[in-house]
């Protein structure tokens, strides 16, 4: 396991702001994917991701649980995306524009909980998922990077999949219940 999120956050708070770059490096891709699904446009997603990181840095002292940095970051990013969405509607000044934007964002919306669910994984499971899929490393490369046997990596991956499926399933079921009870 590399240096934990908690350690990085604490170093930043102790006067080593450059350590924040390591957190950006760790989460830039999942954060971008999360936002791309929400705003439906890559340049805006990148802008929103940068803004989210900057806001996170500036309010780092307010983060109560440093080990939950990533899920806290996603919360900030969700607010940034919402603000960006509102200001874009305002800028375009039209209901039609809002509808177009909402439908384009909805096109990928079905997938945006994925990063939220990844955020709920224990840190060692999350790291394996991020390195394997977001950094594009092979399982063998992940094993080398984390100085772990390949078998440990596949076991961690297996457990991470089980947790992800469990949580995604629970969310899908909850969504179906809500949809059924909503008036048509």
């Amino acid at each position, binding site marked *: 396991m590399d240096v934990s999120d908690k350690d990085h956050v604490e170093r930043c708070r*102790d*006067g*080593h*702001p*450059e350590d*924040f*770059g390591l957190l*950006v*490096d760790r989460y*830039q*891709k*999942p954060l*971008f*994917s999360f936002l*791309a699904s929400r705003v439906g446009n890559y340049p805006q997603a*990148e802008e929103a*991701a*940068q803004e989210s*990181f*900057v806001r996170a*840095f*500036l309010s780092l002292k307010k983060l109560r649980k440093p080990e939950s940095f990533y899920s806290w970051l996603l919360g900030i990013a969700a607010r940034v995306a919402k603000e960006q969405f509102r200001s874009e509607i305002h800028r375009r000044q039209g209901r039609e524009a809002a509808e177009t934007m909402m439908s384009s964002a909805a096109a990928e919306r079905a*997938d945006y909980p*994925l*990063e939220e669910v990844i955020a709920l994984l224990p840190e060692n499971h999350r790291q394996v*998922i991020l390195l*394997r*899929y*977001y*950094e*594009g490393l092979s*399982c063998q490369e992940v094993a080398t990077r984390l100085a772990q046997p*390949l078998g440990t990596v*596949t076991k961690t*991956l*297996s457990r991470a*999949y089980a947790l*992800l*499926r469990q949580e*995604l399933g629970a969310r899908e079921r909850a969504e179906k219940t809500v949809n059924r009870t909503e008036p048509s």
Partner: protein
Amino acid sequence: MNCAESRDYFIACAEGLLQEDQARQCRAHLETCASCRAEYEAISRLQQRLIARGQAAAGVRMVESVMSRIRQEQFKPERETIMSRLMKHGWGFGLSAAAGAAAIVSIILWTMPNAQAAAEAVMTQGAQAVARLTSIHLRGQLRTEPNDNFSGINPDADFCTIELWKQFAPDLKGLKWRVEKPGRVVVMDGKTTVMLIKPAKTGVKVEQPTASAFDTEWLHRIANLSNTISNEVKNARAKGWKVSMAEETGADGKAKSVVTILAKSGVPDNEWGKNWFYDSADTRRVYRFDAQSKLLESVRIYLERPVGEVQIFDLSQIDFNQAIDAAEWTLDVPADASWAGLPDKLAMLPDNEKYASMTAEQAARAFFEACASKDWNEAGKFMSPITEEMKEGFGGLEIVSVGESFANKTYGGRFVPYEIKLSREMIVRMANTNAAHRYVIMGLYDSKQNPQEELDWTNGPAILPDNDAYARLSPAEAMKAYSEAFVQLDWETMKKFAPDYDVENDRRQFAQLEKSGTDAKSQVPKFEVGEAFWSAPQSAWFVKCHVVMVKKWNLAIRNDNPARRWQVDGGI
């Protein structure tokens, strides 16, 4: 292979990690078992989703851009708070603008660290890459008081832009340079060297070309990049400083070599002046080179203090060999500027011997007595020029004590401990045109009602649980309640009369001062709240206040000039 065995292998199978015979057995089981097949397909679908998400973000690289934005955010100047404005003369840090042109201290060499082979190689290549510079332009951010000496650093100050333009030449005749920060600028046009201290409108002129002057030496040393980099390597080796190196990818996608050096000034922690200038500071210096061109791209310097590390310098723009506009070699000194004499050109006074025979303590006391009686002609014999800011801040002061002088190895003069009482008049604008209908502080004014600072109530004053009690207070009573809370550093009560950001910043600054060893509590200003008056044009009440504060510090004073007179050099 049964169901349980097969499921153990699903991830390895989906990832293509199984041996051929294991994979065959797994596939065979899937063909015969619908339940396992459904399970495997669910895993594959999730895997495809994850792969797709990762691929969508494959080209994302934002570390550099985010960190650059963060640095910019950190450099944004903070608004002045009530306390920081009042404390300007109370907590002045070292050689301030008020010390003016006399503050031309000799600066000891900015020495450098020790290296390991890889870092040395990068540094040596970096030095070679810039061995034949014709011109250079540096633009960076330095934590310093805007009007203070060019080499003064203050880790608790905001970042200020500092720039240097330099046209190299084999000798002094062809050399030209300019150094500028918000409150000061020096231009050496090949013939003379002129400095303008902007707020005080004070000029200082040296009638000859110079390679560096007025405390700009450290910046010239960086500008002479080739030597600087070579010296870093030599000094690092000679002094055993810790050196490390890292490789990283820049925002431009190119490889960068980053050399970090931990430099020790050799000045003991308890020495006066430690960490006030580059040469007396312990620093961590981070040099970033482009791995291919070998050119230096940025320099970051962090001050290492027992209470923690703080970044004090960020040099992010280095332009090599670009044409410099001739306008940079000119300096318009306002016609009404006063010209200060250099310490080595001090005029002999008719009664020079009286001053030349004084001890440092006697000179310090005579200087303060002249300020107390507002005898600016007499005060001018100890300090030149005496600015309007100086007169307003120190006129009428009361001497509490003048102690025994001492010296240290970083400074050519002596330090005289002193304690004085300063007082000033100020006016506070109060208004209750807010949802809570309470009188709160809206702005600060000087004694002539010139605005000094407007307080920004972004969210407006909150309605308090006991709001009525506060809504009944008159403007003067509200100011009195605030001033009492101020003296007791009762931050929560202060927030009822001043914006949260203001009080929070004061609290932070106060904590920093205490942390740096300053007995800030004993120096908190005390208010005497006077009469209130109504201004119809501004629809606001104004409350007159008399502010008294104690200042305890060391006066830097030196007599190494031909007239042998003690001159105040700083500590004001």
